[in-house]
């Protein structure tokens, strides 16, 4: 090194042990508690949906990699498996597997590969697949069954949020108990029923620093403040913030969907704006929108702003002009 005074090297200059597969497999581990609770509550139906989504995502990814003459080994980086798992977690347990497969193909093909594969997609692929299914098969996507723990023999069931919106549950006193919401003994998508399992997975991701802590915290704060104001103003009509945090897809959205590295802002300020926006839109849709639940649309909506947020919150380069 005697003759080299200045070492010339192209970026990235700072390397650490993290790699795409390593991060992806950490996400898969963090999803494990939620997967186990979904298997526990919905048994065979959950297993079939999880397997068919993952298989369809891997097949679609492989097909696109082959068509675009890309190395097939990037199939094993885990991103396709995660999209499959996350998509399955957001599906109602009664959905037939062939519809789930259509959603998985759309998620990988239209949500990810048409933009150029991992790292280039604008929207969270799993949510693109779910949004497609929601619009393509609105009836199948909103038919809910109770978990196997429910002793009453009934065929269909309302989700806690559907109950809140369409059955006037606050006035009738039939609101789902917070305990059931916390442990997951209620109707809903595979992975959204148990708050406990999702919090465990989310804490693992935060602890491993796979996800940016600002995003779940920001979404949490803005939904709590928004629903809290309405709750304090009129507790007869609106439910408490705690209910809104535990019910529906809020936790899986805040911990696993909104924090997707590709589709969330890279700057701290951008992450705050993004997260506060998601929480606010969830509250707006739940209180005033046509749907009982709005986590999916709020995340997809804020995804569109990510390139803009990254551009406007770019940190000033050292020595650069203050405005420019």
């Amino acid at each position, binding site marked *: 090194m005697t003759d080299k005074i200045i070492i010339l090297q192209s970026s990235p200059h700072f390397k650490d042990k993290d790699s795409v597969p390593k991060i992806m497999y950490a996400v898969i581990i963090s999803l494990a508690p939620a997967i186990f609770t979904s298997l526990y509550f919905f048994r065979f139906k959950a297993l079939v949906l999880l397997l068919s989504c993952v298989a369809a995502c891997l097949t679609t990814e492989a097909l696109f990699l082959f068509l675009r003459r890309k190395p097939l080994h990037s199939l094993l980086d885990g991103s396709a498996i995660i999209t499959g798992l996350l998509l399955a977690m957001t599906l109602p347990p009664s959905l037939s597997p062939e519809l789930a497969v259509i959603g998985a193909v759309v998620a990988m093909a239209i949500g990810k590969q*048409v933009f150029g594969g991992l790292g280039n997609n604008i929207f969270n692929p799993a949510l693109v697949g779910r949004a497609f299914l929601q619009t393509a*098969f609105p009836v199948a996507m909103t038919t809910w069954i109770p978990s196997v723990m429910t002793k009453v023999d009934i065929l269909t069931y309302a989700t806690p949020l559907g109950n809140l919106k369409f059955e006037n549950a606050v006035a009738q006193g039939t609101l789902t108990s917070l305990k059931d919401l916390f442990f997951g003994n209620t109707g809903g998508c595979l992975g959204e029923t148990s708050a406990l399992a999702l919090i465990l997975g989310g804490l693992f991701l935060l602890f491993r620093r796979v996800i940016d802590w600002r995003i779940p915290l920001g979404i949490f704060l803005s939904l709590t403040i928004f629903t809290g104001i309405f709750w304090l103003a009129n507790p007869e009509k609106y439910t408490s913030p705690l209910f809104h945090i535990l019910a529906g897809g809020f936790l899986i959205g805040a911990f696993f969907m909104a924090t997707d590295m590709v589709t969330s802002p890279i700057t701290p300020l951008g992450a705050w704006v993004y997260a506060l926006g998601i929480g606010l839109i969830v509250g707006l849709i739940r209180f005033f929108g046509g749907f009982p639940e709005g986590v999916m649309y709020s995340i997809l909506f804020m995804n569109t702003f990510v390139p803009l947020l990254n551009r406007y919150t770019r940190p000033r380069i050292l020595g650069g002009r203050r405005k420019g």
Partner: protein
Amino acid sequence: MSTRSIGQEFVKGLWDENPVFRQLLGLCPTLAVTGWVINGLAMGLATSFVLIFSSLVVSSIKKFIPSQVRIASYIVIIATFVTIADRCMAAFFPLISKNLGPYIPLIVVNCIILGRQEAFSSRNSVGRSFIDALGMSSGFVLALLILSSIREVLGVGTFLGLQVMGTWFKPWIIMILPPGAFLTLGILLGIALHIERKTKARK
């Protein structure tokens, strides 16, 4: 003046200069009325009628139109034929006319028609303008047919109202809704661009 042969003048509208897939013109009706094949076909034919007759008129009186007011003159000519098409459809096909609603009168502002007058009919002979309008119309009808066939078959499982998908098929309702139009058009444009690049690379 165009230097192409008469045959090329017609064929360019089908692919090389296809108004929808290559020029990205007339996208409003393309997206709005292609939920059902019958609507797409009716829209395509009505637009073709207006385009062909406007081109004939514009190319035959092009010498008398002062260039300062040419756009206004084209619009008056186009609007005349749109009114004829609109009234005829309302009289002979009231149901289709009702389905298409405001999109028939809106043919007046279809960029394909005004674009062809400005770019072609105003500087070419009557015969060439007729062939050009015929080619562009065929290209437009072809695009609407492709789009509406995909959307109707996947969205309701029928083609021109005939059941083509088996009972196992669950219709993808999204395809006959506006998002289905954008998705289908986007994918078709991607495929068109891909084919274009492949053929260019081969040359």
